[in-house]
């Protein structure tokens, strides 16, 4: 099978009510980015039951085609039946690249799919590019393949290539691409697959499914994120402060931004602050507010880092913010290297001034 026969960039989308999830829309945008450079189509892949609304939503969000399997026995997500259906689709239609969302479902499904298709999987990417890649050991240049860009575990990002296998499979971290503005007038081709169930795939049975209560915290959708770090434990002179004070200043700021500027704002926090499990912040700063590698990835208009030193793990969660403001009284804090605006001062003096500024508006 020649590699040239593989075409189109697929995105595995997940249905939510009568549409697709936000991260699904993000990977459609990611697929659009590389497909346009490759002059190929974007294909949304949907597996489940009751998919009509989701199929239309995928087209409105940038899919040229939708390949889908809509069967009652596919209603609940299950690794083995889904893997089989998706592999059958791939074997028949031969995509050039295939994107998944790097969330729990994507991480459960994409590894098995990639292994069964005997191809590579680049996990947790934050960006994609189309490049020619020269590979020294075989003295070969692979034309127009996908550079799958992921955070490296030191201070860098690394590019992963799958030059000799197709499809090139990549999972994308949520929060790194903006969904395309929906266009309900877009037309797309709908290709329905009618797979047959295989009994052995149902060795795992779903006994119960309970919806996860929806979080009221929408970090990814916020235009301004004010994040707190362990710096709130001390003031500029190094005297201990009740972190509750820092929390209240941060919350007040978020509230005023919402009220006075009319934009969506949320309070975030670093992993260090959340895992410190401070008594004073119990129930106030929970893991749903975590920004960083093991938390949420955010890309707001303005990111205000309050008392955050700026570890690599935190960086990957906020580096795409348009304007980064760092407030920290340690002038050596690494956060100042990536901040657009730096305030090397006591946050317990800066935040009240910021609040005062907003109150006057």
């Amino acid at each position: 099978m020649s590699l040239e026969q593989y075409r189109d960039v697929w995105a595995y989308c997940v249905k939510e009510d009568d549409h697709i999830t936000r991260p699904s829309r993000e990977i459609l945008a990611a697929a659009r980015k590389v497909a346009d450079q490759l002059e190929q189509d974007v294909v949304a892949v949907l597996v489940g039951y009751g998919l009509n609304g989701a199929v239309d939503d995928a087209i409105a969000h940038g899919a040229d085609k939708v390949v889908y399997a809509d069967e009652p026995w596919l209603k609940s997500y299950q690794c083995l039946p889904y893997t089989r259906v998706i592999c059958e689709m791939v074997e028949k239609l031969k995509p050039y690249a295939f994107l998944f969302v790097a969330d729990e479902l994507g991480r459960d499904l994409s590894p098995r799919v990639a292994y069964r298709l005997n191809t590579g999987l680049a996990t947790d990417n934050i960006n994609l590019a189309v490049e020619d890649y020269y590979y020294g050991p075989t003295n070969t240049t692979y034309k127009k393949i996908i550079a799958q860009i992921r955070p490296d575990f030191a201070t860098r990002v690394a590019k992963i290539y799958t030059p000799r296998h197709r499809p090139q499979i990549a999972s994308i971290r949520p929060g790194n691409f903006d969904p395309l503005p929906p266009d309900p007038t877009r037309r797309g081709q709908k290709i329905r697959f009618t797979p047959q169930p295989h009994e052995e795939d149902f060795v795992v049975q779903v006994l119960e499914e309970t919806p996860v209560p929806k979080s009221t915290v929408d970090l990814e959708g916020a235009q301004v994120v004010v994040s707190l770090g362990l710096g709130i434990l001390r003031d500029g002179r190094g005297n201990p402060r009740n972190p509750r004070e820092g929390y209240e200043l941060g919350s007040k700021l978020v509230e005023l931004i919402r009220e006075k500027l009319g934009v969506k704002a949320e309070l975030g926090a670093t992993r260090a602050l959340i895992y410190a499990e401070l008594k004073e912040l119990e129930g106030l700063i929970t893991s749903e507010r975590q920004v960083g590698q093991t938390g949420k990835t955010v890309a707001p208009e303005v990111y205000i880092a309050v008392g955050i030193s700026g570890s690599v793990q935190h960086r990957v969660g906020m580096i795409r913010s348009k304007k980064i403001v760092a407030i920290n009284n340690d002038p050596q804090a690494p956060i100042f290297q990536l901040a657009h605006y730096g305030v090397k001062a006591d946050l317990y003096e800066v935040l009240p001034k910021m609040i005062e500024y907003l109150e006057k508006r």
Partner: protein
Amino acid sequence: MLIVCLLKGVPAKTTQVVTVSGVLKREEMELVLNPHDVKVLEAAYYVKRTMGGKIVGISMGPEPKIAPIMNDLYQPVEESRFVPHVSYEGLDERIILSDRKMAGADTWATSYTLACGIKRYLENHHRAVDMLLESVKTKPAQEAYADAEKLYSENMLPNYIFSKLPTLRNSLMARYLAGEVGKEEVVSELERHKQALNKFIILAGMKTSDGETGNTGPQTAEALSQMLGRLVPSIAFVKDFEISPETGHVIAVRKVGGVIQKLRTTLPCLLTIEAHYEPRVPSASYQKTVRANRYAGKMKKTLVWDAEYIGADPQKIGFAGSPTIVGPGYEIGKPPTQKFVGETLVFKKDFEKFEWNGKSYGPFKRGDNVNNLPEELVKKLKEEQAVGVFTLEDLFEEVLGGLKVVARAV
């Protein structure tokens, strides 16, 4: 019951990471147990206490680096540089898959290699039972008993088939030797045991602290499915699970795609264990069965298996067998311009292009950084209050003043 733990050595400190053109040079760094694997060991110990059997830890990596980790997994160690504290009794057996040819593997090649190792481990147990079957069929009872004793001492037979424990005097082979059971019965019991060997469980961490992919668990299940010709299901991110000594079913709870799923599966299966997992308390009512299903005990020596021993295709392991290639890395760039409150000099108003001392400057916008202007000119502009130090007020104005309600696609 065979309880297989997939373990990994990860760099002790991220600062120690050594790479050569993108490929990790594990042999040049000190490795410790992947912190997520602690949950794997706790889960394995829960299964062993509930079902009996034995726990084997399998890890792929350079032997000199993995051996110190494996040594400290033989039994709980108070202060270990390589293994964090775990509440368990240690591992019964430890196997390192180590071979130059395995180096540079991505998750596909790693999973293939681990699956080859697990397959070999299963085969060794099947072979042991086959040997015993053969000797029961062809040799006098006394000789077959002696063969069973040898296999038992190698940890290859559970107590109910052969045992030296005073509480388990009525093992299958003891009854056979005493003439209490016939040859046919022993043969069919051993055949049943062979089938039961296929009811294993594999436990893996949700991810490793270095690669952070979480791919190896599910991919090992898929690789093993292909090798064994039967599906080994994988369930990722298990927060809680229960295994039933009566039915051998596993009931697992995990979060996926916006729902909490409660799943039931038969054995064999692979679970990846999530960071919040806490082991259940094993039921006390099956302690007799648990004891009968246990093995002689822990083997002190860590085994080292190479690619040939596990029957791995050299084309499918290590760098050669990896579909992905890690290209060059690069630093996450600095933002183009930075302003520091109380430090940075900025323009306080807009300027059209202007002439000064025969040279032209500008245009400048309010808020632009003052860079590369002659000192004299800066002094003059300062006096006119056209440039000044960036203030908190400037910051608020610039950052928050320009914010409008921007419709974002949600």
